[in-house]
Structures are given as C-alpha cells and as structure tokens.
C-alpha cells in the first residue's frame, strides 16, 4: 500500500509539474533548469534512497518498468524526429559537419579521459577503464535541442547560426547513440572478452533488427484508422516491449527505441496524429523518469570523482570550441565557424541523462555507480552554464551577421 501512495505522489508531482513547466521571462540558468525538468532529478534525489527515503529500494524495484518506459520514450522521441524527408532539406555539408564534430569530440574526450582514468583508478581492470573512457567520450558528444528550443523565444534575430546549431544539436545524438550500441554489443556484459566479434555482431544485429520489425508492426497497426486510445496503447506497449527486450539482453534501450522511432517515422504518414499524443504524454512521463533517476542515484562521490566532473566540463567546452576553424577549412563550409560558436553545444539535456542511466543499467558494476555520479554532476554543471553559452555564441553571432 505504501508503494501505491508513493507512486500516486510521483504521478501527482509529474502532472502538476508538467503544467508549470514554463519558458520563464529570460534565458537564465534557473529558468532553464525548470524548463528542462532537471529540477526533478534533484527532487527525486531528495525523496530517494540517498535522501529522505520516501522512495525506498523495494518501491524503486517495483517502479523499474517505468524507468524502462522512460528510457524507451526518450529514444523513441529522438528517433521519431529523424525523418529522412526532413534531413534531406539540409545541405550535405551540415550532416558532414555533425559527424566530424561527433568524431572529434568523442576521440578528444575519450583519449583524455582514458589518460586520466588509468593513473587515478589504479585498482580497476584496464578493459573496464577503456569502456568507461569510451562511454564518457560518447557522453560529451551528445547534445539536446531543448535549450535552443527555449532560446528561440528570446533570441533577438534568428539567423544562419541559430538554424545551424538547431540542426547540429538535433542530429549529433544519433552518432552518440550508435556509439553506445557498438560499445554495449562488442563490450557486452557479462561476456567482456570471449568470442567478442561473433557475439558482438550478433547482439548488434539483434538490437537493430528487433526494433525495425516492431516499427513495421506499429506502422501496420496504425495505417488504418485508429482511435487515439488505440494509438496510445500500441505506442506505450511497443515502447515497453522494445525497451524491455533491450534490458532482457543487457542492451541499451536508448538505441533500440531510437531505431523503432526512426523506422516508424520514415514509414508512417500519420505524424500529425501522433504528435498531439506525444506532446500530451511527453512531459509527465519525462518528469516521472527524472524523479525516478534522482531517487535511484547512489552518489559515489570522492575526490577522484570530483576531478572527473571538472574534467568533463572542461573537455566539453574545449572539444566543441577548438576544432571549429579546422572544420571550416576541411569541409569548405559556407559559414564562418568561430571558436565561440562551440559554446552553444554545452547542453546534453535529457538524452545525456538517459545515456548515463542506460550505461548504469546495462553494466551493473560498482564502477558504473562512479560513472553515473560523474555523468550526472557533469551534466548538471554544464546545463547550468549552457544558457550563457548560447547567449555568447548564437545570439551574438546572429546579431553580428544581421549588421
């Protein structure tokens, strides 16, 4: 019965919270924290096992399917916006830039993290540190469109830099999630080292073909006239099914549900039917997900973790700023790419949180508790400074361009 009360409390907070998520009157860190829903991670943390204990371990076990749904939901929404018809509207150089940016950030971050991890976590086996460095590199390569969507209400003049940054933050997560799928297939828990190519290939095939099949099924079920209720049952049921299959095989639910989203989005002609449904359910589900993550978060904080949190923030800033002039030359990019433009890529938003939680659930190891602490603190810090980053980059560059 206590579980039901706590669940009722979460649902109440989620629905009330969804009503009060507003854009505020300015693009300030506090307003952004409220708009992006990150405040609910802190609320969940206060209610969870490390805080007041209202959401205790046994209750959280019962609510695990909701975390699975939340991860699946984030992945599905991300994949659903990757429609080929929409992407083809942008010049090829934009897509090349997004890939090049991902590659640089991932390699730069991954190598730097590995060089620092090895001398600091001396007792951990090398292959786990490689995995953690790859995961941290992938984490800083992720971006979220939430901040720019909020910023669009305050930007004085929307110009080329706004549209370029909007495109890049929407697409970059795709490469990072593919990286996550490769990591978890070829570094599969618990078969870290035996027959890695054969098993890894098998897991990658399974994690791609299964959601594609479900995507076709979803399309088949909804191509005739269906009521809103039917659509919602199919959507929730199939997202549960796909992310449940991911957990069942220790694969990342984020990747499988992204593939489901991409498949369905490129098959269906009923986008306009699904959008209102997604909009009405997205916020409450997302808030429940963030509260549960906060409640589950076992803070493994020591001086070593604090070094990596600071490193994550610094690397994120540097990796997005430094290579831009080089990309301009290599791609012969039609727009000037000054280093400060990189400051608009500091926010990783919900997709970063979902990535970190996916890692924790796919690899249930003590080291991934450390990873989750580094990732969540790092994300909270970068989210906090990201509104200033957008003001210094996109706002100013677009104003200068208009002059």
């Amino acid at each position, binding site marked *: 019965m206590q579980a039901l009360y706590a669940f009722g409390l979460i649902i109440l907070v989620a629905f009330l919270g969804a009503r009060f998520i507003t854009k505020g009157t300015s693009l300030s860190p506090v307003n952004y924290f409220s708009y992006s829903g990150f405040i609910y991670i802190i609320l969940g943390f206060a209610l969870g096992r490390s805080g007041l204990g209202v959401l205790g371990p046994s209750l959280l076990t019962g609510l695990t399917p909701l975390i699975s749904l939340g991860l699946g939901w984030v992945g599905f929404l991300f994949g659903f916006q990757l429609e080929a018809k929409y992407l083809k509207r942008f010049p090829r150089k934009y897509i090349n830039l997004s890939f090049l940016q991902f590659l640089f950030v991932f390699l730069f971050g991954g190598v730097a993290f590995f060089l620092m991890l090895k001398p600091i976590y001396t007792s951990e086996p090398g292959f786990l540190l490689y995995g953690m460095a790859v995961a941290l590199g992938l984490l800083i390569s992720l971006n979220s469109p939430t901040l720019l969507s909020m910023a669009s209400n305050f930007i004085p003049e929307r110009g080329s830099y706004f549209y370029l940054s909007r495109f890049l933050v929407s697409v970059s997560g795709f490469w990072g999630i593919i990286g996550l799928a490769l990591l978890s297939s070829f570094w599969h828990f618990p078969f870290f080292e035996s027959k890695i190519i054969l098993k890894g290939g098998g897991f990658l095939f399974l994690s791609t073909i299964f959601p594609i099949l479900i995507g076709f*099924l979803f399309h088949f079920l909804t191509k005739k006239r269906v009521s809103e209720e039917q659509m919602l049952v199919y959507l929730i049921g199939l997202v*549960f099914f796909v992310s*449940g299959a991911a957990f069942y095989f220790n694969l990342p639910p984020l990747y499988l549900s992204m593939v489901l989203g991409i498949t369905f989005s490129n098959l269906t002609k009923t986008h306009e039917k699904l959008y209102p449904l997604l909009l009405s359910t997205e916020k409450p589900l997302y808030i429940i997900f963030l509260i549960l993550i906060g409640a589950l978060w076992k803070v493994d904080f020591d001086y070593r973790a604090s070094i990596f949190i600071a490193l994550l923030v610094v690397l994120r800033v540097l990796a997005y700023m430094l290579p831009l002039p080089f990309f301009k030359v290599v791609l012969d990019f039609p727009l000037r790419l000054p280093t400060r433009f990189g400051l608009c890529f500091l926010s990783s938003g919900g997709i970063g949180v979902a990535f970190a939680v996916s890692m924790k659930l796919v690899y249930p190891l003590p080291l991934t508790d450390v990873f989750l602490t580094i990732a969540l603190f790092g994300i909270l810090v970068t989210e906090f400074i990201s509104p200033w980053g957008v003001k210094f980059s996109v706002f100013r560059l677009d104003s200068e361009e208009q002059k």
Partner: protein
Amino acid sequence: MIPLALVFLLMLLLKWPGILPFANSDQSTSLALGFILVFAYLLGNNLKRLRLPQITGFIIAGIVCGPFILNFVSESNVNDLQLLDGLALSLIP
C-alpha cells in the same frame, strides 16, 4: 490476426531456449509487460469482431501467457507488477 501472430512469434523467439544463455531473466519484467499489453489488446480486439467482450481476450491472454501455460509472464514478473495491480484495481469504476 497477422500482428497478433507476429507479436506472439517474436516473444516465442525471445524465450527460445537457445537464446536464454544470452538473456538476463532477472530483467524480464518490462518485456513481459510490453508483450502482454500489446498481445492482450490485439486479442481483445480480435474477439470483439467475434462479438465477444474485449475483456474476454484480456483474460485469455493472461491465462495462456501466464506462469501456468507458456510462462511468457513469469511468477516473478507478476510479483514485480503488483503495483500496477493495485493501481488498476483503484481505477475500476
């Protein structure tokens, strides 16, 4: 009928003994929940066409896929999902 068969076959494949060594059966609650949601709903809709109440389909799906016949939804899954039982019961008018 085709979607119903496809969902059933996919679940059968996931529970195939050859695949089980690669699976983590402790983490099967979400899979079971997703499967039973879609399968029961599709079965209910199919029975509606035969002028039977939709709820009959839900009950048949639960019996067939539950711990005593196919075990797609195991006893531990049922225990893990007790919270939903409570929630559903409180919503029945």
